[in-house]
Structures are given as structure tokens and as C-alpha cells.
């Protein structure tokens, strides 16, 4: 729902915040309904596709043995093992946005051992299969870099082992995460959520002011209970501490997470998990600048190079709450705290405007165009120009109440 521009309407800056939950969360609950309805529109899956999904360790382990047995049979019969790896070219990956599923088509790459061109990769493949098998049997995780160091002589460069890790995930029909290969995590989460993390039950409302460090071992995280009605994804730690200090989840039933400046894989995956399981809307709170919009886009649909993993880490339902370019005027942010856009900023904005997923969203386009017009940007901390509690006491409640998001 969008704000209607009425002549002579009150600026959001002057609107009084409402704290009654029914009123405050009315728009949020409407959005939630909408999203739920969309998920129900289940169509049929296209034929001959393989669904890629998170899998429990036992299943991954079983599939690894299936692959190994096949190779053994090949060697028994002909002495020539061959890997059949699903191709991840754009014509073979289908990200089904409706079902929120990653689908792989029939195209396969044959990686034969008995050829000088592919013998190295074939050997890397079995080696990493062996390593992943070991990780799963031992119940441990490793990062891509650690796997590389496991056999530097064979892998030679990390990009080679990284590619093979992805190959194996595709071959097993699952996410990289399910293979226990993880990326380092930077993010933090706090709020109305109780989880079990590697066996420990953690209440994210009782973690002081720093919150819970998001673990890279997402398969070890189980969501136990939550009464949050939305997730707030903040770009920077600065916003998190403001909200944490205010114990904001007591005012607004929410979970707050941050990637602390970037949108790293673990944070994205965690957000996606939250949204999928709790079925609540997510809202991004970023700086009013092209980089902030970019961070939002990453949470929304993954990084630009549509790598195999990216759709898995996307949260297509996330909305951009702020700080929008129009908010700068709407909330009477003084000129002194607005910064001029640099050449790089302008280029980035223009890039964003070229993206089809941006163009589909008219409101977003308008806001970016406004940004270009004004050539102004502002950090979220700029809200402090109206006082330290402006963010928590005026900005957020008013935005949420009026449903002012993109």
C-alpha cells in the first residue's frame, strides 16, 4: 500500500506515532496476508527438473554414497569413471519465484577422468566429495578456504576448489550449506526469537545489547518459538545498537538482524529462514544512498552474478522501509546532514535503474530518480539530527503505521 499524496496532508515528520499494536501493525498484517495468499497459488512444476533444496545431513550422506557407488560400478565395468554434473548456465537454472524454488534442468556436464583436459577437475571432484563426506560423518563444518587448504597441491587455486564445491552441491541436488561447507558470518540478531543453536537454547531477548552472532552453521539452528510480527533488517550496526538499547522488541514485536555493512551469506540465509518459517514480513532499513539500495537488492534477490547459490539466499518478500529519498523531505532532515552524491554514487544509481527487477517496482524507480534529481544522500544516523530517539520514537512507528515502504 502506498501513501496517497494529498494536497496539504501532514508531513510524516509531524504525524504522531501510534503505539497501539492493532493500529501500528495493521498494514504489516495486511502485507502478511498478501504474502501468504501468494504462496498458496501453487502451480505445477515444469517437467524434468530437479529441485534444489536444503537437505538434512543423513540425506546428503546417502546421496554421496549413491554417487560413490555409481563411480565404483563404472570403474568395475570399464575402468573409466565419469561425473555427471548439472549445468548451471542460465539456460539450465530456473529460479521459480512463485514457489521460491531453485530448479535445475536436464543439462549435464560430463566430467571424465580419462582425459588430460578434465583429469584434474575430476580428481578434485572426488577429493571434495571425500572431504564433504568426512564433514558430514564427523558432524563438523568447514569454510571454502579451509577446504582449499586441505589439498592445495591438487586444488592449486581457491577458485578451482570453490567451483567444484558448487558442482557437488548441484550434483547432490542441494545447497552448499547442506554440504556443511559454510561461509564466515558477520551478522548479528536480536529480538523476539528463541532458537536452538548447536544444542544450546538461546532467547534472543536476553542477550544484552549485542545480540546473537549469526552462526555460519545454519543447519545447526532450529527456530523454536517467536511471536514477532516482522523482521527489521538494518544495514549497519549503528542502527542495531540504537534499537537494542531501546529494547525495541518490547515496543514492537520484531526481530532485528544486521549484516554489519554487507549482506553476507550467513545473514542472508538466516533472514530467509526466518521469513520462510515464521511467515512474517521483512523490512530493510538502510542508508539513503545507492549503496544502501544495493544492500537491499542483495537481500531481495541475491548478488548480481546469479551464481548457483544466490536465489537460495534471497528473500523476495523483503520491503524497503527506509531511509527513502523522499523521507529526507518528508521527515524534514536538515540540509546540513545531507551529503552530495559522488560520481560513483550516480553511476551506481543509474546501474540500479537499469535492472529489470528494479524497473518492475515503480515506487522504487521513482525514489531512485528522486535521488538522482536531488543528488543528495544521507546516512541513517542523520535521523539523529532530530534527536537520538527520533529513529525509534518517530521515524519507525510512523513509517510502519502508514505502510510507507517500497
Amino acid at each position: 500500500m502506498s501513501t496517497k499524496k494529498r494536497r496539504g496532508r501532514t508531513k510524516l515528520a509531524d504525524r504522531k506515532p501510534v503505539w497501539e499494536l492493532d493500529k501500528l501493525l495493521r498494514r504489516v498484517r495486511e502485507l502478511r496476508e498478501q504474502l501468504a495468499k501468494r504462496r498458496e497459488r501453487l502451480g505445477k512444476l515444469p517437467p524434468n527438473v530437479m529441485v534444489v533444496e536444503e537437505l538434512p545431513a543423513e540425506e546428503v550422506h546417502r546421496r554421496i554414497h549413491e554417487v560413490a557407488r555409481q563411480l565404483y560400478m563404472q570403474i568395475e565395468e570399464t575402468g573409466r569413471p565419469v561425473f555427471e554434473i548439472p549445468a548451471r548456465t542460465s539456460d539450465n537454472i530456473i529460479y521459480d519465484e512463485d514457489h521460491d524454488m531453485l530448479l535445475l534442468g536436464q543439462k549435464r556436464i560430463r566430467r571424465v577422468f580419462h582425459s588430460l583436459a578434465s583429469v584434474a577437475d575430476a580428481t578434485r571432484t572426488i577429493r571434495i566429495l571425500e572431504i564433504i563426506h568426512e564433514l558430514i560423518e564427523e558432524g563438523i563444518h568447514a569454510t571454502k578456504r579451509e577446504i582449499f587448504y586441505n589439498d592445495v597441491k591438487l586444488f592449486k587455486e581457491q577458485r578451482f576448489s570453490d567451483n567444484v564445491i558448487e558442482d557437488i552441491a548441484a550434483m547432490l541436488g542441494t545447497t552448499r550449506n547442506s554440504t556443511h561447507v559454510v561461509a564466515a558470518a558477520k551478522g548479528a540478531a536480536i529480538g523476539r526469537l528463541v532458537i536452538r543453536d548447536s544444542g544450546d537454547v538461546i532467547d534472543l531477548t536476553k542477550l544484552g545489547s549485542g545480540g546473537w552472532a549469526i552462526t555460519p552453521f545454519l543447519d545447526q539452528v532450529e527456530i523454536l518459538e517467536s511471536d514477532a510480527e516482522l523482521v527489521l533488517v538494518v544495514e549497519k550496526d549503528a542502527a542495531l545498537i540504537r534499537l537494542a538499547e531501546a529494547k525495541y522488541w518490547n515496543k514492537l514485536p520484531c526481530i532485528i538482524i544486521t549484516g554489519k555493512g554487507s549482506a553476507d551469506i550467513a545473514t542472508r540465509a538466516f533472514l530467509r529462514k526466518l521469513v520462510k518459517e515464521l511467515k512474517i514480513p521483512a523490512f530493510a532499513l538502510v542508508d539513503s544512498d545507492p549503496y544502501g539500495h544495493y544492500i537491499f537488492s542483495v537481500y531481495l534477490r541475491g548478488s548480481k552474478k546469479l551464481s548457483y547459490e544466490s536465489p537460495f539466499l534471497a528473500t523476495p518478500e523483503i520491503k524497503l522501509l527506509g531511509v527513502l529519498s523522499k523521507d529526507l523531505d518528508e521527515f524534514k532532515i536538515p540540509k546540513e546532514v545531507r551529503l552530495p552524491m559522488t560520481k560513483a554514487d550516480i553511476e551506481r544509481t543509474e546501474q540500479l535503474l537499469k535492472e529489470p527487477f528494479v524497473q518492475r517496482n515503480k515506487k522504487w524507480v521513482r525514489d531512485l530518480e528522486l535521488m538522482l534529481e536531488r543528488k543528495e544522500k544521507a546516512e541513517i544516523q542523520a535521523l539523529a539530527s532530530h534527536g537520538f530517539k527520533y529513529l525509534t520514537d518517530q521515524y519507525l512507528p510512523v513509517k510502519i503505521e502508514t505502510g510507507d515502504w517500497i
Partner: protein
Amino acid sequence: MSKEKVVGEIKQSTIAEFMRKRTQLVGFEFGFNKHMQYVAEFLDNALDAIESFYWRFPEAYSLENNISNDILDEIVSKTKEMIEKNKENELKEFRVAEEVIEHVKEFIDPIRTLLDMKEPVVVIWLREVETPTFLSNAHRQNVRVYEFTIFDNGGGMIPQDLKKFGIYLASSKSEKLRQTRGSQGFGAPSAFTDAQNTTGKPITVVSKHYSRDKATVASFFTTTKNTKDYVIHPRNVEPPFPYGTFVKLYYLNIMYKRGYADVYVERAALLNAHVTIVFIDPYNEIHVYPRRVSEFPPEPKYAKPHPASVNIGEFQDLLRDTKQRTLLSFLSKTFSRMSSEKAKKIIEEANEELKKLGLPLIAKNTDPKKLTKKQIEVLFKVFTSQKYLAPSKDTVVPVGAEVFKKVVKEMLKPEFVEAVTRPPTSGKGLSYVVEACIAYGGEIPYTTSSSQVLWRFVNRTPKLRDNSDCAIWKAAASVNWKNYKLDVFENGLPRGPVRLFVHVAGPFVHVMFKGQSKQALAEDKLLIREIKLALEEVARKLRSYITGKETAEKKAKRAYVLSKYAEKFAKSLYNILKTDIEFDGSIDPETLLRKMKSSIEGVEETLEKVAIVEASGS
């Protein structure tokens, strides 16, 4: 003007007087080549002596025995002893025959065994000796005195011939056309002249003819009057060897350098592998080239000149010198491919011409010596305008591809060798045969200079000088070697671990040379084409070999790489499968590896080894 008798100013000099001052005409001038020239001259003479002896008396030599490594070691060690004994490097001045004989006995002692085995052998020793004081000026200019000693067990010379040895133009080689090494009687006399001109020391010779009981010893100078001046008069003594010739002389030259005389000997040994050659160089290095074939080359037949090869001057000479009494017999007996019918025809046609010109006619029985100049001219014109069959080919004696290959293989130890002998050819009435051989890889080193690549031979004699002038060189440079998988130098010769050998043989080669030095063959289209074809033929075979090797190498490399990875692969797969309940530990990593390896081409040998190990139950 006074009417005194004017003595003419043109004196008729003798050849000897002429040549004494011009030894450089036959290669005897200061320079690195002079060392080679001495070696070449006397080695050629020695080889000729041995061969003509054999062709007369095949029992002279026995070629069935093997020259074992022990014998070779004996030669080397005894030679070392001899060198050691003569360490003081004194210039030997023989005063009496007994001294000479003592020295000769010592000289041939290392090869006694070979002489006893009746092996044909030549020994050459070239060494620097003390410069006598009267020559010390030269010493300061880097010029040294060299002692040249050679012995061969050829047929030897009878005393009368020994008297003529060293006289200009006294040669055992007749003027008849035969495939010979090509000396015409300038070599030995010029060598002697140079030797005594530069050092003032006499030449010492000992020779024993196979038919005589005694050997003859002499030490002499040759004179401008083409006679000899004796220091030791010829004396018949008890022979220190059964037959053969020994020569020792001294000459002045700039310091010896490797790359000339030693190369000459090496190459001569290649194409004269029916003789054992020992060469001791001024560095006291002993080069032994043992006999490698068990047959002498066949004796080349004499060739009558072919009409197409005769020029007017030669025609006149032949007429002047002929022993034939009639014109008809002169024509039909002097030239090859000339029948009496043809001779008759020539005389008739000549007469037609003479009639037209109003000149006296010639008859079949006219005395050849009585022809007038004009008659000779007309006769010659008709003679050369006839069509003749190509000259016969049996005057040409090639080395033979198999022998070529065998010797090159044993001497240079290449990994690949191929040779071809083209069918004899004739152009302009001169018949000759071209042979080519190519050797590659193995112990043949890469060359830094193109002159080491091509070994040229004419009538079994290596040609080292005037390289790029020679038709052989030009032919070799014109081959597109890149086509045969070889790199090239800028001048067109191939570059790499490769050697080319080209041998041109025939009875007429002495007219095929470019200049007086007889080191380069004149450019002739047909000759160049023949050489090129021969080289291309062997080059094609080399190309097949290299391609095969490349394929084999690729295969081997692939097998190696795949094998190495297979070890890792099998290990990783095994590590997964060993926990698999379905297999329950029944998988053996070695079997996995073996199966993977068995389908790698070229790893069969590994497989065999494994099978043996398995079979032995270990």
C-alpha cells in the same frame, strides 16, 4: 741499335721451380688449414696404397676378425707410453738408417697386434716440437714447429718408386679416368717443399714393398731441379714391418687448433671404415677409429671418356697422344658409347662438311696424328653433335646405404639414422652417384654452427673447405627442412641434434670441381637436383620417425599424468566407500587403482608389473 744477340727473356722453368714457390696453390700456406692439408694428403695416399694393394692381392688383409675393446685399450695404453717416452718433444735428426729403424719400431709398437692380425691400419701423429733457435723469431709470432709422422701398411714402394716419391707429377695414379681420391701428383711434393722450406729439415721415409725382402730407408731434401738431395742415402735394411710406408717430416705453422685436422680424420674414418685409423693430435689426445666393416669397397673400373664430356683441347690431346694408328680405331676405342658404325658415320659426315669447304677429306684409316687443324675442328664439330647413350654406370662405386648407416650409427650413436644411394646418373657425359645419410638424436649434440651439420664427401674424401661454395651445400640449403620437422639456421641448413652426410662419387669428379683447390663441387642443375632428392628421401623417413616419437611422447606423458591423478582418485573414492555398508569392506584400493590404470593407454607395462606381483602372491 746494337746487333748483339738478344737473349730471350722468357725462361722455361720447371714445374718444380714453379710449384716450390707456390705451395699455397695446393693448400700449403700458413693457417689452420695447413695442418689439415698435411693430414689429408698423406692419409689419402695411405688409403690409396692400402686399397690398391688389396685389389691386387686380397690375401693381403684379413677382415673377418673382431677388433675387440681389449685390443683398442692396448693401442691406447701403448700409445700413451710412447707419448710419455717422447716427452721432451725434441726435433729428431736422424744421422743413420739404424736410428730411423729403431724409431719406426717404437712408432708402430702400439699397433703390432693389428699388423699381426693383418688389419689395414694407418697411424698419424702430429705434435708440436721444440723450436730450434734459428727459428725463434717465428716462435714469438705464435708459429710453431710441428712433427708429422704417418705409417700405413699398404703395399709399400719399391726402391725405384721411392726415389720418385716427392717428385712433382710423379704419381702412381694414372691419367686414366677412374674413381680415385683425386690427387694428381701435387700433394706429396708440395708437402715436402713446404716442410723443408719452412724448417730446413729433411723428410724421412721408410718403405717396404710386399714383393721385396728388405725395406728401404732414406732421408732427403727435394730440389728445384725436381731431384733429391740425400742426408741418409737409400739403404736396404731388415724390415721393421711386413709391408707399408713410414714418413716423417717437420713443418712450420700457426698453433694447432681443433676443428680442422681432427675433423678431417674423423670424417675420413667414416667413409673409409674398412681401415683402422689412429690419430694422435698435438694435445696428446688419441683418436682411434677402428675398422667397422668387413669388406673393402669394390675396385672401380676405368672409364673411357664420354664424348659429351670432352672439350676441344682434350680432343686434340687425345689425338696427339693416341696409340691408335687409324682414325676409325681412334674414335671407336678411345671413347665410351662409340661403336665402329658410329665412328664411320662421324667420318662420313665430317667428309661432307669438308667437301663443302673445299678441304681435303679424311679416311677411316687416316693416321690420327696427321690430321690438319681444320680437319680436327670439323671432326670435333660432328663428333659432339651426335647423340650418344648415357655413360655406363659400373665405373661408379658408392659406399652403399647399409654400410653408410652402419658406420654412422657406430660412430655417432644417433637414435635414428637413414641413408639412401640414388641410382647413378650422368649429365654432360659424366656419370656419378649421389648418396645421402641423415642421423638424428641419441648422442648427437645440438650444433651451434651450421658448418658442423653437413659432412661433404667426394669420392670418399671429406671436403672441409669452401663449404658454402659447394653444390652439395647449396642443395642442402635449398631443402625445406621445416617441412621435415627440423629447425633451420639462417643459411637454410637444418639445426638441432642432426647431421647430414652427402657423398658424390664417380670417375669424373675431378672435372666437377669449382676451383683449383678441389674443395667444392661446381653448381650444376642436375647435380643439385640429385642431391636434393637424396636428402629429401632420407628427410621423409626422419619426419615419420619424429612424428612417431612425438605421438609416443604425448602418449607417455598422458599416461604419466593420468596415472598420478588415478592414485589420488582411487584413494578418495575408497575413503568414501570403505564406510559403505553395501560393500562391507570388500573393496580393495589397489584393485580400484589397477582398473583405472588399465584403461590408460601406455600404462600396460605398469599393469604387467602389478600382475606379476599379484601372481607371486606377495
